[in-house]
């Protein structure tokens, strides 16, 4: 199973689409690793610099409808090859969310109010998030400040991240 703890990258906007996560012109690459430098290249977000801001981050916290638009699994792959395995958002586009779990990664939804609170308390500084999958708790820490936030994922999603993804699951079962 992948690691779901680490440093947080805050993307303070709703409706970030998969063209912004990885532009279509890079979909001609035939390896996931090749996508790494182009991650978030076309994001429309004031003051954001992908080369500077993505480094050493392992988790994305963002707003509503993350991953909308194109079905490209290159979006989760671009996230994965940048060592990010968990995205936390108010909501996700269906295909993106499914792609994350199919790849053994997590896309976790939290209520808008909780996301708002996290942005208010943590977005402006270095933040670390620890995931306890068994208890279903995220622990967020920055400069001594500390918050525990409960979350849940479905049994099906849990099965996908613990059994190595949808291909093995489906091939053994159907």
């Amino acid at each position, binding site marked *: 199973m992948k690691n779901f703890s680490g440093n947080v990258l805050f993307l303070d906007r709703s*409706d970030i*689409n998969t*063209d*912004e996560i990885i*532009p*279509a*012109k890079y*979909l*001609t*690459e*035939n390896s*996931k690793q090749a996508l790494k430098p182009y991650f978030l290249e*076309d*994001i*429309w977000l004031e003051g954001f610099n992908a080369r500077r801001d993505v480094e050493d981050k392992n988790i994305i916290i963002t707003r*509503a*409808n993350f991953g*909308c*638009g*194109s*079905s*490209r*699994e290159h979006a*989760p792959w671009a996230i994965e090859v940048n060592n990010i395995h968990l995205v936390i958002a108010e*909501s*996700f*586009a*269906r*295909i*993106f969310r*499914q*792609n994350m779990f*199919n*790849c053994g990664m997590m896309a976790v939804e939290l209520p808008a109010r909780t996301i708002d609170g996290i942005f208010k308390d943590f977005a402006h500084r270095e933040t670390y998030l620890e995931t306890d999958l068994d208890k279903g708790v995220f622990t967020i820490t920055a400069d001594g400040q500390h918050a525990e936030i409960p979350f849940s994922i*479905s*049994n*099906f999603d849990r*099965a996908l991240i613990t059994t190595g*993804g*949808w*291909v093995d699951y*489906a*091939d053994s*079962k*159907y």
Partner: protein
Amino acid sequence: MGKTIAEKIFDAHSVDNPADDIHVIRLDAVFCHEITTPLAIHDLVNRGKDRVFDPDKIKVVIDHVSPAKDSKTAMQGKILREWSRRHNIRDFFDIGRNGVCHAIFPEKGFVRPGSTVIMGDSHTCTHGAFGAFAAGVGTTDLEVGILKGVCAFRYPSTIKINISGPLPEGVYAKDVILSVIRLLGVNGATNKVIEFTGPVIDAMSMESRMTLCNMAIEAGGTSGICSPDRVTIEYLWDFIKDEYASKEEALEDAGRFLSDADAQYDRVIEHDVSSLEPLVTYGYKPDQVKPVREMESIQVDQVYIGSCTNGRIEDLRVVAQVLRGKKISDSVRGVVSPATTQVYRQAMAEGVLKIFLDAGFCVTNPTCGACLGMSNGVLAEGEVCASTTNRNFNGRMGKGGMVHLVSPATAAATAISGFIANSELYKG
């Protein structure tokens, strides 16, 4: 309690219910193109599972960058070509016989009322126009679809949009769907099926219904869906005539997949389009929509006509009707990409292509190309394009470019004017 079309299709295809409301369903068709399929093939080979569940249910096209523009896109085509040959996939459409996936597959009669379809392409929702459940998926879901012929979805919850009219002159299916997206917002239908019903839909051609269902994803919808009716049967008749004694019998059979009067919907929206105006997007989200008359000061560098949304023969005829006998503005580059080889041939036979050429348009081969900034009409930084495609995302048609989504009629008028324009000004 009654059921919706989508629920009836799920019930008829259910294989498993592994958890909660997750249902694994049997697939009637798995569609493939060269952008999202090669990495699925690569993974299957690496896992020692280079198999397909049924070569007759897998349909393959090279469409996104056709002809190949460089070595990398050539390799994607090569991988798909060799894989199709290796697995005896007979329905493989290469350059010269190809077309944009969501235009060519319906044209070949591959989508039937009540069937289930997936593809590694978000606009797969288009095929719901035939009364099918059709959903875009990622490469892993596609891979499992290829291997096992199944896919997992949440049991469908449906938003019904009852569209009443009549549709005014100069207003088209594209304007209707832009108005629906404006109404729902870009995530208003996430995890939902959008069922389009009502007298305006009943009067629409299959092409127009495909335009509607095509953009269900822009409101987050899993699939668009229309009730199969006489129009559906007429469109499919050449492909199904051996299966039924008469059109009436085919219609009755398709009737198994109609929503019941007492079906339960997530929401029912009454949408009156009788005073709808031609619409256009502004900004970078497809729910940012204004009437054309409020955008007439916007100058454009390029007009693009084509794509799985609006590159079918009906669309090209509408454009030709506006363009006939006129020239496009000197400041505009006009690019038209007929969506399939058949559309291209038909447009040639009807004199439509000549009208395009006489007006100053460049007619390209069928391809997805410019719609996603791949080839055949990519924008330079700071350029503006009025486009009949489906996404106005930041950078979509080229880094730093601005895309305004419009109907084919509005695109034609805009090409003549050089500014976003209402087609009613140029008709006749």
